[in-house]
């Protein structure tokens, strides 16, 4: 994994719940699996050394944190990532550019009286 520090949106209780939900290694692994596309509980369980009820419990926590959605598909129920629940790419850049432009402004103004490079 490359070294990237994300500039995530400000902390609030909603996101704190999400961080808690992602504080568990199995739940993070579930989310990583769902990055590739929707899966049923059974499909998810086949990837993990834990019981299907345990997977269901993890999915419930993720669902309560708005990180996953579930919907019926034929006779089964599939889970997918809730794109609205995660900080969107837009939020990410919104925060990132605030930080970057503040640093840019300092760079411009701090050197105003210096010789040009």
């Amino acid at each position, binding site marked *: *994994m*490359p*070294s*990237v*520090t*994300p*500039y*995530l949106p400000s*902390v609030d209780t909603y996101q704190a719940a*999400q*961080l808690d939900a*992602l*504080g568990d290694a199995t739940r*993070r692994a579930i*989310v*990583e699996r*769902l*990055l*590739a*596309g*929707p899966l049923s509980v059974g499909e998810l369980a086949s990837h993990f050394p834990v019981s299907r009820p345990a997977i269901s419990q993890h999915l419930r926590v993720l669902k309560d944190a708005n990180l996953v959605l579930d919907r019926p598909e034929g006779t089964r129920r599939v889970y*997918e*990532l809730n*794109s*609205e629940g*995660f*900080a*969107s*790419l*837009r*939020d*990410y*850049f*919104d925060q*990132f*550019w*605030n*930080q*970057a*432009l*503040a*640093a*840019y*402004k*300092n*760079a*411009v*103004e*701090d*050197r*105003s009286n210096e010789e*040009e*490079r």
Partner: protein
Amino acid sequence: MTTTVDPVTAVPVRKGITVKAPVERAFKVFTEGFDSWWPRSHHIGKSPLAEEVLELRVGGRCYGRCIDGSECDWGSILVLEPPHRLVLAWQITTQWQFEPDLAKSSEVEVRFTPQDDGSTRVELEHRHLDRHGLGADAVRAAIDSPNGWGGILALYAVQAEGSAAPAQ
């Protein structure tokens, strides 16, 4: 994951800031001085960042040079109109890898407008974010960087104290 365009992600991020410097200097610090202010933590290389480099010509690369000597491309220059306008392709995938395909890259346009008082208005637009896919990098960020929060808050603190010295 759904394949429909996230309507939120389709909206550009727009930022504006006024800097107390003439337009020539504002443009020069943004471009030639890019390395002096770019947040050090925003870097996709496998080793720490030594220097950010913008090749200042249309088609020029934007890359980070790591301390181990490797280079990590993250963008390219689409438009270069000193001292008023710059457009970069933002070529980073949701997996934090270089994206060679411009059709899957977003764009950052920066406009520099002189003001009557000698300052410069800098307007930034980061658009076509939906080309990267659905917020998956925010997912990655949340998953892969559990320590990210401390760093963010520290950066905010530095800014709040007015000593956001670029780069170290």
